[in-house]
């Protein structure tokens, strides 16, 4: 499925609109084309996963969408507004989540910091922070420091900070790549749970196919570098997902095979224009 670049009218509930986005890193003598051309829409309330091989340009895409990186061409708009700097109402959970926590601030202070920057008063800040930490199951470590927590707990703090911010869109960059399998399963359920309860819009980047299917309503499959969208797959699994039953459903197996094949083709260097 492709969306023509010329289409610029957007349907009313499109939150994030990406059109012909390109990024080439200008390294001396040797420009690295990371993103060739990306076009897609994210609707308000969606949970979309982006899956692609390592080095495909997933982080590059996310940093461009977050306004941390200037794209070489094309456009990305949040709610109709061109993203040129980190926009209001966007939260990001970085791949290097442990390094994204301020080691000199307590867990509660870390979570409250973005709220403070928005001018939220102290009482409201404390209330929202407590609620967010409660939601990720970390109410009892509010006064600790990040370096006193395990990796999985640090990841949940980064998530709590994003959630407390009440973003309109949450970007997550391979957030669970570095935690153990059990913690990872818990965190996946936590993301689904928060998305449901808070009505978030989530763009979740991963290189893990199972994770992308388990989490997403929709999976965008990226080719390897320079990246393009290979496929846009709707995930028609029941909304109530469960680590055991969902992963054992025939539909899950079918989707996994489909995405897996796409990613294998991506690794082999297949481009979107090629015949299947």
């Amino acid at each position: 499925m492709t969306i023509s670049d010329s289409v610029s009218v957007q349907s009313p509930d499109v939150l994030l609109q990406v059109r012909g986005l390109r990024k080439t890193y200008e390294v001396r003598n040797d420009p690295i084309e990371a993103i060739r051309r990306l076009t897609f829409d994210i609707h308000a309330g969606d949970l979309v996963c982006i899956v692609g091989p390592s080095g495909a340009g997933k982080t590059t895409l996310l940093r461009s969408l977050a306004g941390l990186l200037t794209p070489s061409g094309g456009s990305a708009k949040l709610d109709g507004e061109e993203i040129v700097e980190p926009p209001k109402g966007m939260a990001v959970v970085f791949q290097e989540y442990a390094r994204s926590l301020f080691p000199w601030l307590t867990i509660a202070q870390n979570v409250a910091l973005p709220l403070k920057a928005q001018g939220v008063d102290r009482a409201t800040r404390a209330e929202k922070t407590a609620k967010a930490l409660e939601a990720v199951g970390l109410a009892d470590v509010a006064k600790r420091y990040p370096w006193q927590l395990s990796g999985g707990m640090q990841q949940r703090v980064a998530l709590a900070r994003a959630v407390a911010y009440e973003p309109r869109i949450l970007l997550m960059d391979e957030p669970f790549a570095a935690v153990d399998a059990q913690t990872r399963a818990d965190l996946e359920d936590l993301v689904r749970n928060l998305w449901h309860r808070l009505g978030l819009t989530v763009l979740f980047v991963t290189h893990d196919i199972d994770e992308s299917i388990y989490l997403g309503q929709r999976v965008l499959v990226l080719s390897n570098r320079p990246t393009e969208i290979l496929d846009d797959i709707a995930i028609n699994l029941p909304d109530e997902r469960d680590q055991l039953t969902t992963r054992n459903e025939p539909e899950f197996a079918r989707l996994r095979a489909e995405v897996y094949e796409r990613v294998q083709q991506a690794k082999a260097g297949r481009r979107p224009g090629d015949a299947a």
Partner: protein
Amino acid sequence: MSATELVRTARMKRDSGIGKQVRKVLAVVALPIVLIVTWWFSSAGSQNFFFPPLEQIVTAFQPTWFTGAIETEVLPSVWRLLGGYLVAGVIGIGLGALLGSSPVLRAFTEPALEFLRAIPPTVMIPILILFLGIGAEMRVVVIAIGALWPILLNTIEGVRAIDEVLRDTARVYRLTPMMRFSTLILRGASPQIVTGARQGLSVAIILMVISEMFAAQDGIGFTIIRFQKSYAMPEMWSGILLLGVLGIVLSLIFKLFESISLKWYFGLRQSQRGGN
């Protein structure tokens, strides 16, 4: 609470045990006590005019310093020291934050800084006397110039070394410029700033004394030189002893400040050594 965490907490408890504290204090004071005792007995009965017995020096201490000299000589020295040190701190940290944040500015100012840094602050004294006279201002400025360099250069390094992910986090969550300065830059560079401030303090003490050896009317350095010129050896030695004590007191105050402001840093380093 995970097992590793419990182990870590237990380790912290053991480290702060009474026995450990006593051993630590002993390790710190053992050598000074040995040196003082050695000095006391080896100099006892000394006939050398220039090296009087320690007993005589200690006896001279009280009448030399505690009969008004504290107010007329010591305090003026200390105020100039603190004044110059404060000026160096404000300029060094402020300018360091600016230069550390901007590669362009850094490239632009680097040659000039290298040149200025190479000039020993003491050779500035004759020039400063021309502009500022021989009053307190000249001495404060000499102290400030000398203490500035370690603080400035360490701050620049510290700001440069702040984690990129943390910078991105600050941008994504739209911290205000004021918060960015206080919470990201200042705290992030604080380990290096403290290192620079410690070096700056030693330089400041040296320059406090030296600046008082030029055309001074008061101060510890001035008084020591006065005793030396009038061959009042025990009094001169008592002045040197006083400088040593002043240095120890200042460094203890500094250590206290350091242990409070860098508590997170020592904790972070310990947790990294302990593994996660």
